[in-house]
């Protein structure tokens, strides 16, 4: 069976969590917004240096803070992808507090931060906005055109083995 890892996607609603999973697992994208309720589970197996990691991705309905999400969704998670929307400051203004409380809750789970919808910015805006984000080390992604989506999940998978 290889190694099985529970990966949870967190971040405010509308930032593109569902779209990232759809792009990553099914290579599809839709402009139409369909809210997620509860949680949807998908699976993708990645190979890293001959190691197979089975990523079970929990695409969780977004809330302004992870504290509003049922505890059992987060229970036993091996890794976290935290997604923000580069166009909506409200989706990253409390990211520092969110990171701290997530690390307290899941001390052994690595977190990969994803700044999504990068396709909506010009080169100049990219530099400006990304430099002004709180914290650093974001993977700049576009669930729309697929840019760096694979890389974000791969980065997390690498931290899980």
């Amino acid at each position, binding site marked *: *069976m290889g190694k*099985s890892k529970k990966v949870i996607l967190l971040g405010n*609603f509308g930032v593109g969590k569902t779209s990232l999973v759809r792009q990553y697992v099914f290579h599809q994208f839709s402009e139409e*917004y369909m809210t997620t*309720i509860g*949680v949807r589970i998908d699976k993708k197996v990645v190979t890293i240096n001959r190691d197979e990691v089975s990523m079970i991705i929990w695409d969780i*309905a977004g809330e302004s803070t992870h504290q509003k999400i049922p505890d*059992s969704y987060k229970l036993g998670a091996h890794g976290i992808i935290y997604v923000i929307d580069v166009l909506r400051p409200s989706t990253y203004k409390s990211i520092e507090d969110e990171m701290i409380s997530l690390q307290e809750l899941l001390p052994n789970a690595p977190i990969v931060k994803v700044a999504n919808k990068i396709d909506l910015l010009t080169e100049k805006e990219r530099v400006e906005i990304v430099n002004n984000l709180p914290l650093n080390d974001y993977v700049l992604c576009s669930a729309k055109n697929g840019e760096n989506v694979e890389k974000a999940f791969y980065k997390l998978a690498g931290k899980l083995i």
Partner: protein
Amino acid sequence: MKLQDFKSKFLRSWVQFVLINEKGHLLETCNTLFSFPDSPGNLFDEIPFLESISELLADLKPGEEISFPCINVDLSDFSGFCDYVFYKINYDGKTATLWILMNFTDHYKNLMGLQQQRNESVIQKELLEVEKKMLFWQERCSGIKTKG
């Protein structure tokens, strides 16, 4: 019929009970919502949700339970929204996991409509504010340029 009979008749239509042994093999199921193939393999391999909580289930003590509200379910002939509850129980002298699936599809679909409206209006409002700010800065910048 007694109240108890009505109760079990009513409950029967929207709840499925599945019994799984420690290794992940199906012991018994009632097929109310969906049916398993004739000889299902290891459920921890076949159903990603179960795969991802297999460690949690192994740690669950007899008498304990874990519940997961609002799971988007897509299992053979059933798709909808269920709440899941898992119990560790004693079955034929061995510990087993009882997986209860409660079908709340109509309720959650209704909730989904409301949430969609809430989210769309919040996002719309935020984007308008961002746009306003950008226009303000663009005007200021072009003002500085023309003055300079």
